[in-house]
């Protein structure tokens, strides 16, 4: 693998955060003059790897070689001086400074101790001319579109570093025309011999621009391949987890499905997810499969009223309901465990008990507090029932491991005795043992007659507990699989299919 062609080599990089192993001996090799796509689902370790390369994080193990010399950047500034420049999705420039000031911040040309604005502006114009940009460099950066800001950021990064350019989701907020412009620039930089790392979740763009692809999953290297010889389906199979042990893949007790309870017709919201129809019975688990950005999470949020639907109607037991807000949804006995439990799930400094009773208390209203004895009873019940491993119920929840935090959030919603439970990535970022427990729990809830919607990027998991699987692509529901057709291969096939094809 190691050739002199490599401009940047990362060897057995390790990084551990409390509770998770973010990078587990990951190798990454970047050649001179190549565009190398770095892929993986959320939490796969892409950002962590990049942050280790750019010095934003200190790695716990492994080595980084730049031009065959070992380097150890302590911060992004040092990485830049060494030759590794980074451009993030959120443009990391200062919107209130002019374009020229942004390009030359900290190294403005000076005359007699004063900044020579004229020289600086001239050099800024010259620099941007290389990037097909002819703009007024004396205007504030904020007055330009994100695409132009992105190019300015690239120009600055290349001008400062000049060996390796890392682009972290640079196209996320650009339109097709702007993407084309960006790609022209990337190709030009590639021809100049830069090594370019390209992180994105748009697979079309990966195939359009990249020479090689490296896939990470759960902090581990899945593999590095030539783009030309890797077909789409294989790539998706690499990205999506298929590693669940057979033990939880027990034959599904043939779903003794209850009556149809929830009907969504033509339900959707512009810009988030295209209108879809969805029926959910009691005692059913509907899985949502799709890649990041396909509209899975958007669907979940829409169903819970976190965003208001702008088309279609919802019915529960044949009666029309208005799910305008999470409060309304909770009144109808909906529950929702969001994807990012750190920011939108747990309240870290509160105890396990307080986190568990939170939703129930919110539904009852603050004027009718739950007695301490009742709280203790509830907390103890769920700590036992879900096997939440904590020293005691008064421990701050942030001290628990990821899997136990997840179970506590689940307990929070179970305490409200929901009838319709939405789980967004319930197994994200928790260890494999805890995976199996969550899967068992989902099974148990289904048997109790709950209706569940589960969003997951772990295909095998979906196969294990779903009675039906909805496949999403490009913010639309594109396929529905049920019965014996719920297999990992079929799901991957449906995700990878480039043409819209309905298998009802």
């Amino acid at each position: 693998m190691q050739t002199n062609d490599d401009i940047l080599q990362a060897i057995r990089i390790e990084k551990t955060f409390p509770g998770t192993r973010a990078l587990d001996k990951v190798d990454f090799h970047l050649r001179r003059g190549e565009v190398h796509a770095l892929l993986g689902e959320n939490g796969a370790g892409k950002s962590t790897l990049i942050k280790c390369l750019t010095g934003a994080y200190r790695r716990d193990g492994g080595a980084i070689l730049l031009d065959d010399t070992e380097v150890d950047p302590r911060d992004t500034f040092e990485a830049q001086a060494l030759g590794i420049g980074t451009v993030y999705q959120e443009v990391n420039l200062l919107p209130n400074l002019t374009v020229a000031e942004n390009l030359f911040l900290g190294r403005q040309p000076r005359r007699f101790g004063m900044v020579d604005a004229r020289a600086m502006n001239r050099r800024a114009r010259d620099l941007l001319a290389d990037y097909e940009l002819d703009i007024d460099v004396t205007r504030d950066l904020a007055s330009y579109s994100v695409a132009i800001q992105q190019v300015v950021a690239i120009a600055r990064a290349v001008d400062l570093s000049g060996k390796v350019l890392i682009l972290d989701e640079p196209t996320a907020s650009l339109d097709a025309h702007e993407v084309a412009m960006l790609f022209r620039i990337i190709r030009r930089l590639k021809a100049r011999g830069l090594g370019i790392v390209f992180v994105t979740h748009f697979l079309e763009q990966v195939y359009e621009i990249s020479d090689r692809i490296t896939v990470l999953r759960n902090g581990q290297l899945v593999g590095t391949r030539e783009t030309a010889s890797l077909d789409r389906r294989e790539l998706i199979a690499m990205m999506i987890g298929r590693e669940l042990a057979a033990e939880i893949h027990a034959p599904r007790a043939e779903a003794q499905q209850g009556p149809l309870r929830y009907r969504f017709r033509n339900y959707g919201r512009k810009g988030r997810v295209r209108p879809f129809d969805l029926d959910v019975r009691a005692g059913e688990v509907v899985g949502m499969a799709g890649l990041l950005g396909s509209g899975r999470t958007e669907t979940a949020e829409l169903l819970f009223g976190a965003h208001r639907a702008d088309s279609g109607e919802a019915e529960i037991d044949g009666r029309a309901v208005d799910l305008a807000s999470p409060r309304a949804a909770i009144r109808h006995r909906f529950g929702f465990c969001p994807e990012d439990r750190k920011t939108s799930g747990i309240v870290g400094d509160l105890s396990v008990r307080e986190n568990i009773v939170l939703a129930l208390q919110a539904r009852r209203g603050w004027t009718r507090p739950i007695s301490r004895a009742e709280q203790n009873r509830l907390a103890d019940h769920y700590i036992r029932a879900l096997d939440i491993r904590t020293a005691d119920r008064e421990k701050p929840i942030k001290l628990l491991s990821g899997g136990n935090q997840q179970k506590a959030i689940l307990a929070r919603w179970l305490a409200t005795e929901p009838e319709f439970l939405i789980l967004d990535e319930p197994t994200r970022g928790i260890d494999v043992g805890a995976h199996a427990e969550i899967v068992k729990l989902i099974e148990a809830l289904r048997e109790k007659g709950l209706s569940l919607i589960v969003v997951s990027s772990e295909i095998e998991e979906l196969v294990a507990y779903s009675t039906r699987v909805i496949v999403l692509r490009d913010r639309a529901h594109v396929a529905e699989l049920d019965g014996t057709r719920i297999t990992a291969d079929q799901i991957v096939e449906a995700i990878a299919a480039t043409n819209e094809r309905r298998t009802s």
Partner: protein
Amino acid sequence: MKPKYLPLTATLVIFLLGYVICVAQYPNMLSTRVIGNLLTDNAFLGIAAVGMTFVILSGGIDLSIGSVIAFTGVFLAVVLEHTSLHPLIAFALVLAIATLFGAAMGAVIHYLEMPAFIVTLAGMFLARGMAFVLSIDSIPIKHPFYATLKGLYFKLPGGGRITLIGGLMLLVFAAGILIAHRTRFGTNVYALGGGTATSRLMGVPVAATTIRIYALSGLLAGLSGIVFSLYTSAGYSLAAVGVELDAITAVVIGGTLLTGGSGFVAGTLVGILIQGLIQTYITFDGSLSSWWTKILIGLLLFAFILLQKGIILVSRHRQQRA
């Protein structure tokens, strides 16, 4: 016109308009004498406001200014009364103390990651307390050198005079404009106001810049204290209460965004002049209570906050369409 010049232009227009209205009512106000007095009367506030402009541009706030002015005045009065030091040496001494005091606050804000509001609030009490420790009485300064300094002025045609302190304020503003727009430090101040985390990523020396900003504010507050003691010929620990708020007002009316990152030192000068103009008008009128100054300035301040909010909305809207 670039949107960032809009608040500055609005301030300038309001000042000129206000002046025209004043002159229409009291033609006497159109004289170099009035202008000279405007500069002299507001010199200490103007000098302190330059420091405040830098602090606010960087996204911070400095509440200790008034107290530092009072401390400076008392310090000078006490030193000149009890020792035989030459006032110039006393000036140098007190400027050094004020600068160090500001730098220390900057260091606390940066290294302990404390909000500037709390740190400078503590600084405010500390400086005021130190003034009381030195003396609780109003001490007159009768040094002959003070009389000499007060006698210095530049005569304008029409009988007006730009006194030493009025001229000093103009010089400080000129230096402030140069520092803000023509030095790397100036750009770094704007950068901090645009976002500390991003600035750090882009290689701005955040610690050094923060400390220098508050040191500069301290230095200028000290200079303002010297000017104030020249203006009043006394040092009193209860003097200059609330001057920091007047300075903030001038900065905001001058078109600087209170959240930092956008604004001009020159705008602050106009802001000072507007405040002075309102006061002058009330003096000329003679029948109006001085409370009207506060009411008018309150309204103006409110109007400018609305204007800034509007500009931010408009520019964001425009960007979305671009």
